[in-house]
């Protein structure tokens, strides 16, 4: 029987990797922003129910995990560039654009800590979970750095605008949260 063959050095895997990469950047930005919004607010919510914001935060993070697996898999399987499976986890020793690849690996490692602790949340102390969850910030920031140098799409205008929008969104959310926190403290 003739199985359809995928040319492991052809552009299909490369496109899939770039595609998942862009989508992941936007997705994780959304997850971080939703996380910041989830942490705000006391008493009855005014606009959107809080469980919706939280549910979106959790579910988009799950979706992103699936996409991340695809993103890593397509990079490893693709034989056009030499990315081995352990390069996805080890921040050093990569052969293809080692610094930016390492940033990707670092981001994934931090994300693993966040993800595993969240999956096992009922078994660990709240304090430990919360401290590790803060690693989501550096994980996202390092992922942005990864996206800036790992590919060619960053050269294009839409690539640049996407990154700018993502960074802007997170900065705006952080600033907004800092302001409302101060207001809350003053009011109490």
């Amino acid at each position: 029987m003739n199985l359809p063959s995928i040319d492991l050095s052809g552009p299909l895997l490369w496109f899939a990797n770039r595609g998942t990469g862009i989508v992941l950047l936007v997705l994780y930005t959304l997850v971080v922003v939703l996380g910041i919004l989830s942490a705000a607010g006391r008493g009855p919510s005014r606009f959107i129910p809080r469980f919706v914001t939280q549910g979106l935060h959790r579910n988009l993070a799950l979706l992103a995990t699936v996409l991340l697996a695809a993103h890593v898999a397509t990079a490893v399987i693709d034989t056009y560039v030499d990315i081995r499976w352990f390069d996805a986890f080890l921040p050093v020793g990569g052969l293809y654009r080692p610094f930016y690849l390492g940033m990707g690996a670092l981001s994934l490692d931090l994300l693993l800590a966040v993800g595993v602790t969240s999956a096992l949340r009922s078994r660990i102390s709240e304090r430990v979970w919360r401290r590790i969850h803060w690693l989501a910030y550096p994980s996202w920031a390092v992922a942005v750095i990864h996206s800036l140098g790992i590919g060619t799409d960053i050269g294009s205008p839409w690539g640049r605008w996407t990154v700018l929008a993502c960074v802007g969104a997170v900065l705006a959310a952080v600033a907004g949260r800092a302001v409302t926190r101060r207001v809350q403290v003053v009011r109490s």
Partner: protein
Amino acid sequence: MNWTIRVDWPSCLARGLCAELLPERIHLDEWGYPVINGEVTTDVLRHAKAAANACPHRALRLLKAT
């Protein structure tokens, strides 16, 4: 088999998700903190578990009613 809802008051920060997900048993007082009204029966058990799982500070717990 009923369950009781217990609030870990020092951890509760009046975020309000529990009242959103289990309005049959939880409403918020004038300061935003949950007022528990009755035990969890089988008809609302699913929502009660969702409420306990949704609390951002794990301040809501379901305990087997004695």
